[in-house]
Each structure stands twice: as structure tokens, then as C-alpha cells.
């Protein structure tokens, strides 16, 4: 896959050129490409003078980063405690079987990525499912079709 790495200098310019900026730079790359392309990691390592191994270590340690491209729609199921006791796992089962993938995976047509996330802090509306930026509150097991349709 080809990625427009010409955006990298802009991202690099936002932060001081020091190892301390690594996480911030990676976050911006993730935001730009929706994942961390290998080439971008190598450039970041070189620019910040951080060993590539450390860049890899950091980019696999934090939840915010993904080394695989994500689908058009990223469906995030909140797995906060409240969502859990209000049945988030059942909703995860439904979404997994409807999409034919497990949480953490992307459909082969690159349309959907299913993720479980730790608490998003919207516990009063549990269980919560977020599709890209849209929140679905108080989700019932039988509403997953609607969520996938984006209704």
C-alpha cells in the first residue's frame, strides 16, 4: 500500500525534535493515516533520533496505535465496567457474528473495523457503541443491525 508520506514533515514540525516527542508524533501519524505505516515509523525514528526498536515498542504498547490499516467505519464497543454489567459483551457477540470478524479485526472489504475500548466515560448511557464519532447510547442486543446500517 502506498501512503502519502509527504505529510510527515508537517507533523514533525509541530513538536520539538527530541525523543520526548515520540508519542505525540505517533499519535498525529495515527490520526493522519488511521494507522501507523512502517515507512512513517522509520522516518519518525530517524527524525527524532530514537532507535527504531523503541519506536516499535511504543507503537505496540499503547492502545492508541495500530500497525494495521483500519476500515472505513470504526466501530468501538465500550467495555467499561458499567457497559459490561449492562450487557456490552452480548452486543460484542452480535457485532462479531454479524461482521464475521473478532474484535480487533477489520473486514476483508475494509469497510468495518471492530474494536473494544476501555471506558469512554459515558457510563450513564451504558452500554455505549461508537461508530466513528457517533455515539449510540443504551444499546440493546437487537439494535446492532441498525448500528451497522448507520441509522
Amino acid at each position, binding site marked *: 500500500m502506498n501512503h502519502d508520506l509527504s505529510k510527515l514533515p508537517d507533523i514533525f514540525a509541530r513538536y520539538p525534535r527530541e525523543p520526548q516527542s515520540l508519542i505525540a508524533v505517533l499519535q498525529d501519524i495515527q490520526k493522519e493515516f488511521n494507522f501507523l505505516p512502517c515507512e512513517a515509523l522509520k522516518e519518525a525514528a530517524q527524525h527524532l533520533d530514537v532507535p527504531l*526498536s523503541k519506536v516499535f515498542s511504543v507503537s505496540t504498547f499503547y492502545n492508541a496505535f495500530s500497525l494495521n490499516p483500519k476500515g472505513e467505519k470504526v466501530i468501538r464497543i465500550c467495555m467499561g465496567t458499567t457497559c459490561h454489567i449492562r450487557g456490552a459483551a452480548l452486543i460484542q457477540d452480535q457485532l462479531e457474528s454479524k461482521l464475521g470478524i473478532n474484535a480487533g479485526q477489520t473486514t476483508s472489504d475494509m469497510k468495518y473495523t471492530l474494536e473494544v475500548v476501555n471506558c469512554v466515560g459515558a457510563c450513564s448511557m451504558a452500554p455505549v457503541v461508537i461508530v466513528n464519532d457517533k455515539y449510540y447510547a443504551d444499546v440493546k442486543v437487537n439494535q446492532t443491525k441498525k448500528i451497522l446500517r448507520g441509522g
Partner: protein
Amino acid sequence: MVHLTINGTRVQATEGEMLLTVIRRMGIDIPALCHHEAVEPFGACRLCLVEITKDSWNGWKGYVTSCLYPVENDLIVNTHADKVIEARKTLIDLQLARCPNSPEIQQLAAQFGINRTSYEPKVDGDNCILCGLCTRICDQMGFAAISTVERGHGRRIAPPLDQPPPDCVGCLACALNCPTHVIPFTQAGDRRTIWEKDFELITCSRCGRKTITREFATALSKMRGIPESYFELCDACHREDTAQGMGRIAAWSRREEKAS
């Protein structure tokens, strides 16, 4: 000087020393898998756990890893308290569950009377106990070619992007210091392969023996200013040259003496 008591014996130690150093100096055997003097103490395997207390602590006892705990005046250390032994046994049992096939861990477990782990053994696991010695030594040497990857139970050791590591010089320090010998490498003729990266070994220009990798020699020259020409001969041929040189001087001085 710091004065403390270890297993009932009053001992002296230098300020800043870690308990483990003092314990080992006394000849007391306690296991430690992630400890190596070349690198900073890490505290990952937890096997060097000891019980500490002080008279002034009113009976309160703490459990600390001795590799990381600096000596303190009046500290009373017990390296083999019942609770400590039990914890060590459980820790080894857990390691054995992770690496059921590692001969080194099996052997250590056997010392604690464990022949099979009482936990769920990992089926597809390798023998890596995640002590981190390989990455820490590599960091310490200034290469940082490999690192820990991911986290939690899925943590592992890997080269960047799971590809041959660009910063590796093939020195083998990672593999040779691995307590469970899990890092594979091969060597044949003038080739060495580790982390799936291929290296050329320097061939002694006189006798043809193989020494270190070309990359390692270049790195040593660059980092520490050692002339590259030093690396052209093996140690035996260097010695031979030394003998020849010293001999020539001796022969010369004998001639001088005879002449005078």
C-alpha cells in the same frame, strides 16, 4: 558503611549497594533470572524476593526484590523466610507454566520440588521468560536493536517491525546472555545469522580464523575509536606478531650488548 543483618549474620555493606549484591557476596544462594551486573537492576522475575524488617517497625515485614533494594542501616533481612520460599515457588511454577519446555526452568522448578506446573501450561509458547536481559544488554551496548513489544500477557521480545533489525551488529550478546537460550543464531563459514539478519564474519588475514562481524568492528571503531586495522588479525596472530616484535627487540639488544 552500612550495617545490616542478613539471615542472622551482621554484615557491612557500602552505601548504594543493592541487597542482592551483599547476599551473593555472603555466598547465600538465591535465584535471580533477570539480573546481570552489566545492566541496571530491573526487578522483573521477582525471584530474589526477600523479607525485610527493622526493630523499629513493630513487627511489620515487607517483601522486596533484593536486586533493587538498596542496603539500609539496621535492616534485618531473611532470604529464606517461609513466605519468601512459598512466593518463589509460586513464581517458578508460573514461569514453568509459561515455558513448560525450557530445560533451565524445569531444572530450577525441580529444585523447588515442582515437576509439572500446577497452572495452565502455555501450549504454543517458546522458552522466553521475558527477563528482558537481551534488550537491556543491547541498549546498554548502545545498539538498541531489539525491544519488548506489546504488553500484558502478550508481551514479547522482537526486532523492530518483526523484520531483521537494522541496528543489530550481530555481536550475539543477546543470545549468549539469555538465561533460557531462546535466541537462535547460526554460524557457518564466514556467515553468521541472528534475528534473521545475515552478517559477514571478519576472516583473519593470516590464518583464516573467523573473528567478530564486520558490522561490529565498524561500530567499535566508530563508537570507541579503535583503529579498524586492529580487527584484521585474530588474537592468536596478534600474539604471534607480539612475540616476533619483542623477540626482534631482544635480539637487537643482545647484539648491542655483545658489541659493547
